[in-house]
């Protein structure tokens, strides 16, 4: 497709606190169905809460973390939570659990944890970087 663009999405608002993850997901679905490519999703600041495997909303509410995880898996899109944001907010994988001797880990697959370098690389390589903030 000649007009296809490659996007990096950055989400900084937490689910069930802000609209940011929902808006980003709706954008991502629309972009993919229009033939565009999502190169990477980067969670920053409060946005890292989206990657928690412990979110358990009431059954009649949309499970945004699950919906995002399903979308990412279905389309093979890599998603990264910023390590500094994640550690401050209690989001860790097995490696960080071991490193900081924490009692548990809670990173939802297929999300990964890495540094801001992933955001820099994504912004450099793609056509557009779009930010989804919570507003303040």
């Amino acid at each position, binding site marked *: 497709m000649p007009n296809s663009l490659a996007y990096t999405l950055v989400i900084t608002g937490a689910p069930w606190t802000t609209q940011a993850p929902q808006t980003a997901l709706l954008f991502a679905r629309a972009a993919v169905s229009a033939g565009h490519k999502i190169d990477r999703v980067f969670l920053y600041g409060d946005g890292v809460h989206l990657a928690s495997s412990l979110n358990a909303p009431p059954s009649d509410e949309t499970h945004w973390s699950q919906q995002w995880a399903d979308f990412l898996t279905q389309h093979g899109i890599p998603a990264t939570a910023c390590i500094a*944001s994640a550690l401050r907010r209690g989001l860790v994988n097995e490696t960080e659990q071991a490193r900081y001797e924490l009692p548990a880990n809670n990173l939802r697959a297929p999300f990964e944890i890495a540094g801001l370098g992933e955001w820099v690389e994504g*912004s450099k390589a793609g056509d557009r970087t779009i930010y989804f903030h919570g507003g*303040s």
Partner: protein
Amino acid sequence: MTTLIVIDQAPYGSWSGREALDMAFSLAAFDQPAAMLFTGPGVNWLRKGQQPDELGQKSAEKNLSAAPLFGIEALIADERACQQYGLSSETMLSGVELSSNIQELLNGHTHVVFAS
């Protein structure tokens, strides 16, 4: 790629500004041109003599003073916001550029990132 990181919130009230600062430092660490614009209440980041010890937070002033050392190309303050918040060259960190044409500044960068 040239990136302008925009901080429009006062320091110490939330973490978003601090995390925006980390983004700027990260760009510089990966040799990507980065500048920072302070506007609205965000110009208070540039105030001299900040004393955040009693808040239990690290000094934003100290972070910003180190910015040129880490390769951040410019710290830019919105001149109108400085007037509004009573910031002058005497009360501001040294080395800050003033801008009265924000539109031109935004247009001059390929990427613009707002802190929140």
